[in-house]
């Protein structure tokens, strides 16, 4: 067979296309597999290992990795997570396999997840409480510890609620303080403001008094109770019960009990708030911030994109101008997203936000309200970034509306607008939805522009809460994509936080897939109904 014949038949081309598809699939499957494996395994209670080394050192912790020992051919070394950061200074140590004399999995080894200083590994000695101590060998020890942790958690939650209430009580004073500062800076008369501030302070003190009393009681109760633990090398350390999130002795647990711990950890991750500069705890504020931001973005981008596409496709003539607009739109989709971020900062935050502040919040300047990054400006910036996608998809949707249907409406006496509004747009709905899907997928994964327009490492409060006006569009927010960057690359303890990064990636992927599936299901339903119209 000649080369020409071979090329003409196209067998090689067929294999090449198949190989390309296979490569793409392999990369996607590989990415998802790695993420799911690390993320899903992270929360499982792994066995606690005690190692006795040749020099007599004892280590207790979890084996978290293994690689080739650079010093001895054929041997490996183990990365041990040993925790106890306040004692040893490092979460992880490398142990050369050749130095290990003894390895065992003690059933009395516990790990404590703590609010501060990370994980503690050790053997419990006794639980000290206001009503005396319970020895670790006593039969009721585990139950007593669980009860003490549970009680402390309840008190801890109450303390947080009280602090939030105190914050709300303080809000009027804080606002007046800002106004007073602004007036002082501007050289205005401050007598009235000062009097108002004194009244507000007095009112705050009055309302705060019972609250502070309760808080003092709570804190006293929280300070009580400590769990005395022994580390692997025999040091004793008293750990306040109020600082313990969860105490687990994984080596003695049955599989269902491990599963319970596993699910509880996932739940904490999904529904909890972060601690230890985001390397532990949950990511709920980031999930919430991402979802709300995507929602606001969709609300902004769909009308804008649809209206633009309608004008381009239904009203504007095909001429050099519309060709230029289409070209500009296509190019806009290729502009680096950080450029959109810079534009959002300059236009939305400084110009529009600054203008709003000068008009409506002048009495608090120079403290900005809308003149600083916030969820509204971030959403609008992303809306701008995704508008070309919506325009192109909507135009395709509009072009797919059969001329016969348009003619039918016109022949019934519908004006151009009525035809558009009542017949053409419903027909183009699947195309519009496709645009929204693409915009959501793009917007949910975008990080760079957000860093300039309102995303933060740790937001003190959600953008949606119980205080009027409930939706706080000026607030800064947390975002899963930024969270991945922050935890993975900006945290003080990258190694310990690495699995958190994978878990966060998994959550972001699932969130995007869920958003897409919802929109695709909706589109499929619409399409199925429209398909039957074609005879």
């Amino acid at each position, binding site marked *: 067979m000649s080369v020409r014949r071979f090329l003409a038949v196209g067998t090689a081309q067929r294999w090449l296309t198949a190989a390309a598809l296979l490569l793409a699939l392999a990369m996607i499957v590989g990415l998802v597999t790695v993420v799911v494996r690390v993320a899903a395994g992270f929360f499982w209670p792994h066995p606690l290992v005690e190692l006795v080394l040749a020099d007599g050192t004892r280590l207790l912790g979890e084996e978290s990795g293994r690689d080739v020992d650079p010093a001895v051919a054929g041997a490996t070394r183990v990365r041990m997570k040993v925790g106890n950061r306040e004692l040893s200074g490092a979460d992880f140590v490398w142990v050369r396999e050749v130095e290990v004399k003894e390895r065992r999995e003690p059933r009395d080894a516990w790990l404590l997840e703590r609010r501060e200083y990370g994980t503690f590994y050790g053997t419990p000695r006794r639980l000290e409480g206001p009503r005396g101590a319970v020895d670790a060998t006593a039969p009721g020890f585990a139950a007593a510890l669980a009860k003490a942790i549970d009680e402390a958690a309840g008190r801890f939650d109450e303390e947080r609620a009280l602090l939030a209430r105190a914050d709300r009580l303080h809000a009027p004073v804080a606002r007046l303080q800002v106004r007073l500062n602004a007036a002082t800076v501007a050289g205005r008369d401050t007598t009235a403001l000062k009097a108002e501030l004194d009244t507000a302070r007095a009112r705050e003190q009055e309302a705060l008094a019972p609250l502070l009393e309760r808080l003092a009681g709570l804190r006293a109760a929280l300070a009580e109770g400590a769990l005395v633990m022994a580390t692997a090398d025999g040091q004793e350390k008293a750990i306040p019960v109020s600082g313990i999130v969860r105490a687990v002795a994984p080596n003695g647990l049955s599989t269902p009990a491990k599963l319970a711990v596993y699910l509880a950890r996932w739940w904490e991750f999904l529904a909890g708030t972060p601690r230890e500069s985001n390397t532990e705890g949950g990511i709920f504020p980031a999930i919430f911030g991402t979802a709300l931001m995507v929602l606001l973005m969709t609300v902004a981008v769909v009308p804008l994109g649809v209206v633009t596409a309608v004008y381009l496709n239904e009203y504007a003539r095909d001429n050099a101008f519309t060709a230029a607009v289409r070209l500009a739109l296509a190019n806009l989709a290729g502009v680096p997203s950080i450029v959109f971020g810079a534009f959002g900062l300059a236009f939305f935050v400084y110009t529009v936000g600054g203008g709003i502040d000068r008009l409506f919040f002048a009495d608090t300047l120079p403290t900005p309200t809308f003149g600083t990054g916030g969820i509204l400006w971030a959403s609008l910036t992303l809306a701008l970034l995704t508008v070309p996608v919506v325009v192109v998809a909507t135009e395709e949707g509009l072009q797919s509306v059969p001329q*016969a249907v348009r003619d*039918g*409406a016109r022949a*019934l006496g*519908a004006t151009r607008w009525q035809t558009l509004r009542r017949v053409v747009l419903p027909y183009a709905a699947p195309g519009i939805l496709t645009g929204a899907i693409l915009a959501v997928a793009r917007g949910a994964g975008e990080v760079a522009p957000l860093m300039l327009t309102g995303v933060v490492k740790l937001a003190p409060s959600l953008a949606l809460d119980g205080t009027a006006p409930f939706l706080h569009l000026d607030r800064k927010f947390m975002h899963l994509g930024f969270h991945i960057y922050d935890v993975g690359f900006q945290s003080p303890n990258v190694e310990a936080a690495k699995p958190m990064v994978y878990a966060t990636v998994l959550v972001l992927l699932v969130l995007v897939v869920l958003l897409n599936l919802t929109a695709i299901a909706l589109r499929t339903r619409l399409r199925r*109904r429209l398909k039957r119209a074609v*005879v």
Partner: protein
Amino acid sequence: MSAPRPALEAVRLVAGFAGQEVLRGIDLAVPTRRITALIGPSGCGKSTLLRCFNRMNDHLSGFFRRGRLLASGRDVYDPAWSLEELRFTVGMVFQKPNPFPMSIRDNVLFGPSLAGVHDRAALDTTLESSLRHANLWDEVKDRLDASALDMSGGQQQRLCIARALASSPDILLLDEPASALDPIATVRLEETVRELADVVTVLLVTHNLQQAARVAHRTAFLYLGELIEEGETTAMFATPRERLTEEYITGRFG
């Protein structure tokens, strides 16, 4: 037995696209409450003529026309007569069924809702009478809120007739309404069209001579943009006056 004033009238009508004449001086009067068929070989201009009466050609680029066009005795280009109102008077049904992506009820009541009718009772009456005239009422009365897109092709086309009737037009233009339908659906549609003469004047374009013979009271034969012959269907099919007509209806060309 034609009515004194014709429902539709074309006087020395010349029309075409981009300088190319499609109709070359047509004089035609369509009598009220009768069914008139326009026949002729493909490209003879019968659809263009039909679309002149409700000004659908005006949306196509390069369209021009000279001569007068009257509907119910009124000039269709009368500036005081808006395009939309003209189309309430002169309804149209197309070759392919074109139901809108909405319920059967909303499809039928599309015209009245455009005209601003909101009275429930009046709308329900219109809905039922339109569907009855289109021979569709018994088939759909239990599922008026179902999507029109779930109907069969024949039902969809009769729905389009009902939709056109709901605006209570004086005249209904049918542009090869059965060409996309199977034979059984075509029979049903022809029955429907025959009964329409009770309520409206019908101008029907068809390429099917048997259909013209079965349905139309009167027939007009167009050839290369000219009206060759027009008269009572039975008379024309039995004894055509023109040689061209005879050759066409006997199938010597077409």
